[in-house]
């Protein structure tokens, strides 16, 4: 019975369904299943487990694509990380967690409170700075984020800081003036050090649907995203949008957020991720 072609079609349907439900998206899911269909035909695969494993390998390949560009180069001093993304995805919290990671590695860390817009955004980052043992540069609410960024960089140089992490305000990618503001923040940094920023980290919320792909494209175009942190994976969402993003833009997922606590950050492990995707 296992040789019957109909078993395969049912299996393909089930696998496609699993991808849809994980927010992988229609286009990417269908491309993956079509690729699988071809390979199954060519290699005359019959075992459902082998077919499923093949799909997992394919997704793994895609997720690892951007990883070759990876090179944790903490040579520059300060190593500058700009954290960006739409509203409420977990930027400020992720910066706190990243700060802890670097402090644990005996690095001197400085936070820049460049979200000068949202109510109590500066206060929120200050709490995190205290919690992890990082310094913070801030102006008053309503100040120019580019000015805060400039001051923070000077302070980082003067204080011999190892890692400077810049918190920016949440902003929707379809707001042109806000994206322009972000480009300005980046320019301020690269004017001070042409190798900087060394990392532009896009924060994506795992509960986000297909809009995440649009977010990645527009942020990438504006400020050249070098990595993604996928947050809130401790919920029930799978964040499957990253597969399409990796496929199209080759941006590596570098971290995952698995909770609201200071230690709830993990380096992205593509194999674990793929196992959970079909788990």
């Amino acid at each position, binding site marked *: 019975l296992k040789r019957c072609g109909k078993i395969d079609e049912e299996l393909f349907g089930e696998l496609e*369904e699993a991808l*849809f*439900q*994980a*927010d992988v*998206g*229609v*286009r990417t899911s269908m491309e993956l299943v079509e690729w699988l269909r071809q390979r199954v035909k060519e290699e005359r695969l019959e075992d459902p487990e082998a077919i499923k494993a093949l799909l997992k390998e394919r997704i793994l390949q895609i997720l690892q694509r951007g990883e070759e560009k990876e090179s944790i180069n903490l040579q520059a001093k300060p190593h500058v990380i700009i954290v960006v993304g*739409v*509203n*409420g*995805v*977990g930027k400020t919290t992720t910066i706190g967690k990243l700060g802890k990671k670097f402090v644990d590695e005996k690095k001197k860390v400085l936070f820049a409170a460049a979200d000068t*817009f*949202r*109510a*109590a955004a500066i*206060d*929120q980052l*200050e*709490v*995190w700075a205290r919690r992890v043992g990082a310094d913070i540069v801030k102006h008053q*609410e309503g100040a120019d984020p580019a000015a805060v960024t400039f001051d923070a960089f000077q302070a980082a140089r003067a204080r011999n800081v190892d890692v400077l992490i810049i918190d920016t305000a*949440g902003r*929707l*990618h*379809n*707001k042109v003036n806000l994206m322009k503001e972000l480009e300005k923040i980046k320019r301020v940094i690269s004017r001070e050090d042409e190798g900087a920023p060394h990392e532009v980290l896009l924060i994506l*919320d795992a*509960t*986000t*649907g*297909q*809009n*995440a792909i*649009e977010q990645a494209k527009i942020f990438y175009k504006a400020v050249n995203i070098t990595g993604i942190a996928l947050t*809130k994976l*401790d*919920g*029930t*969402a799978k964040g499957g*949008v990253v597969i399409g993003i990796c496929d199209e833009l080759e941006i590596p997922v570098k971290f995952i957020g698995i909770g*609201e606590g200071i230690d709830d950050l993990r380096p992205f492990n593509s194999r674990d991720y793929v196992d959970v995707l079909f788990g």
Partner: protein
Amino acid sequence: NLSEKIQNTLKKLRGKGKLTEKDVNEALREVRLALLEADVNFKVAKEFVEAVRERCVGQEVMKSLTPGQQVVKIVDEELRRLMGETKSELNISQTPPSIIMLVGLQGSGKTTTAGKLARLLKAEGKYPLLVACDIYRPAAIKQLQVLGEQIGVPVFTMGSNTKPEDIAKAARDHAISQGYNLIILDTAGRLHIDDEMMGELVRIKERVRPHETLLVVDAMTGQDAANLAKEFDENTGITGVILTKFDSDTRGGSALSVRAVTGKPIKYIGVGEKLDALEPFHPDRIAQRILG
């Protein structure tokens, strides 16, 4: 867009003569994929298409000279039927204070929406009191205080060492003694699978019996919208939904998912970061957005 896709699919098939059920299935497949692309939950999309299919195998479509148009009309009608009428009135109690509780996942926009609601209700002549029941998130209380100050609405807080249910109860007593006729409880973001935190919502509800429990959902939410809405509704009992960040370019299929699994009305949409960016929800507009 979807209307065009459906029309084109059935136009191609009509060339073969009489329309068969198989032809209709082809068009319905387009509908299902379009809904998925718009972030409608997989199971919700499936059930919706089944409802459409039942109507499509009748005379209305099969005998029509323009079956494509008929299918589009049915999809449109079913979408409108599912989304309900504009029902943005809040359930204001006859005996004040009316209590509105905001709940939802982390980062969905509850605190900002609390500010928006306070501003709106104050403009409608109410005397609202904002209540800081998020005792966990760094600077959450300060965030609500800053918003309250911006709109001239007082914020009741007992700091972060008192249980949220006790804060809610004290706020209600304070409102009664000070003459506020409306209370808006801002709660901490939480996962629907976090039993302890979901239990906290039940305790708050039991202490102060809110007249409205509004689920605040990020409009950009994907498949998970159906899961979280169902859990919050079953655990806490919601009376309505507010979809935030509708000023993004998301298709908003989450609106359909949330409505389909809870049957509760979407009362408002957030359309910006400023406190005046709150609008009543128009069901027919979301039908437009999803159909493309």
